[in-house]
């Protein structure tokens, strides 16, 4: 499953991060590394981007980029 498909209000554990070089590097730097727990909070009024909660802060990213992040759902 990818972060894009995870669904609002759901949490997941990051499995791997893909995408083009600069994007991928940025996602990793912002703390989306394997085993990190992320929670999808909401999507913007026009459906894109989404905002997620991880490592005690909130990050906004686009759906196309969220589709590059593989996660497994965690039931909290």
């Amino acid at each position: 499953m990818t972060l894009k498909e995870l669904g609002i209000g759901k949490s997941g554990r990051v499995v791997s991060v893909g995408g083009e070089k600069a994007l991928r590097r940025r996602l990793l730097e912002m703390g989306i590394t394997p085993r990190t727990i992320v929670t999808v909070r909401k999507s913007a009024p026009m459906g894109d981007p989404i905002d997620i909660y991880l490592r005690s802060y909130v990050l906004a990213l686009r759906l196309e980029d969220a589709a590059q992040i593989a996660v497994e759902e965690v039931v909290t």
Partner: protein
Amino acid sequence: MIIALAGNQNSGKTTLFNQLTGSNQHVGNFPGVTVEQKIGALISYSDVSIVDLPGIYSLSPYTSEEIVTRDYLVKQRPDAILNIVDATNIERSLYLTLQLIELQIPMVLALNMMDEVYANNGSIDSFALSNSLGIPAVPISAAKKQGLDELAETVLNAATKKTPPQRIDFCSGAVHRAIHAISHTIEDHADLCGLPARFAATKLVEGDELMLAALGLSDNERHMIDHIVSEMETEMDTDRESAMADMRYQFIEEACKISVVKPHKSKEYLLSAKIDSVLTHKIFAIPAFLAIMVVMFTLTFGGIGAALSRLMLIGVDALIEIVGNALVLNGYNQVVCSLIVDGILSGVGAVVSFLPIIVTLFFFMSILEDMGYMARVAFIMDKPLKSIGLSGRSFVPMLIGFGCTVPAIMSARTIPSEKDRKMTILLTPFMSCSAKIPIYSIFCAAFFSKMQGLAMGCLYIIGIVLAVLAGTAMKKVAFKGMPGPFVMELPNYRFPSPKSVLLLLWDKAKDFLHRAFTVIFLATIIIWFLQSFDSRFNYVVDSSNSILAGIGKNLAYFFTPLGLFDWRIATSLITGFTAKETILSTLGVLSGVSAAELPNALAGMFTPLSAFSFLVFVLLYTPCAATVATVKREYGSWTGAAFTMGFQTGFAWFAAMLAYQIGSIFV
């Protein structure tokens, strides 16, 4: 002594900078880029300068902010780095810290917002954290001025004693071995370039192309490095970038386990989430945004700003009258009077009367930015701007462009990526500014009286559509392949710091006045000169004999394909460069009619079709002198400003020509 202030965006870096330096700051640009550089003297230590570096999350080579910071730290080697981190968000903040430590420059960690950590029953053992990282760590609250004396003392101490960070090894296992091996291989090259070997080696493990190029390695050495890295990747069963990021975060998590007690979710976070449940709500978000913008625009262009602007104008007019009378009474000749009154005072006066509007607008803008609302606007409005290669961050500057292009371009500075900033600056002049409204309304009343509203609406839409086209073209040509992922932190809402807001206003006002009295001053004098003298440099009373009119007559050929045959039109467009409102007054003066008779006079100069072509040209052609000066300031060079002028004028000429030629087929 130089101290570099580094940290993430939203870490409170600006607040700390303002607290440490007071109002004793000056702003410039880093050479060659539109990245701002602020320098200030440490309070009560006039020989200690603090350099405020851009807010960044990493030292990777992807954005100009990161490259500028890296180059600055490596080449200028400041005496110490003061790294500020948001203690409520410490894991991600320390990611940059670990990279800064590798530079082996004396360094101190400022743990900001500790008051919030304590208030939420959290704690950070700064002593234990300092031990793990090998650099001193000082808990502070920049907003509440807590711990700042101790911080200053610690930084000065580190800088004087030149104590480098005590630890550089944050990795274990395969990554550690790879860094170590590469570090040995490149040591000599790194020394030659004045780079810390350790930092260079880590960057090579990460696959950093800039670093690879800078070191000037032989093919043999490159192969060796590739071999070391691929061995590491095989052993770890992952790729180089993921391996490094993972390793750093693992170290950070371990260090935090020992020293940090994290509150579950802070009060500030919960409050922010509540506010967000309205301000980024699926249905309410856009109405709320529009309401906030309407209030801001009404107060700026209709209320406070406009009232102050009128007062300013009354003051300027009074001054003009007093000075004019005084000059005449003292028997100065006509030319000197005209230069001072018509040239300098009216020209600069017209521009200075914008000042209250700019200051009022920035007052609201900086409050919204400091509170964290601008990041939400970017979040809400990202989708429509994504298609032209921009992000939601460009929305507000472009919106302000409908009021006045000058503050719009100045506000583009808050956009975090340089590529987006440059594109926003180029596209904002397409948003029709309010100075063009009088021109539109007189022309629409004179030529399109049955559909005035529609005609005006059309002009605004033409501007927006052409901006989209130009943006799409730029994305494909000029800014091709420049990465700019939209991955943005949404910070907790905070109360804005009055000191930061006031300093920003002071800064913007100073900046604008400086420009008014240099570039704009010069531009008005040149236009006045051209308008007041003939080609034999004799002073003329009737400006239709002036050099300017001569230029207008020659330029009329250039405007023929646009259906604008009359030399008076070309002349008015030239004077429009000082301020767009001047176009109408020039047309009036050259036709020898008063403002009330102008619509009738226009009917003799234009057909409805050429009037439309004229309006399209006015909508798009070179922005006014104040805007060009602002573009120059933001780009840090005349190239960008000249490009904007040429690009806009060329675009305007083609659009108006097409409008006229296609229109002629039907009319």
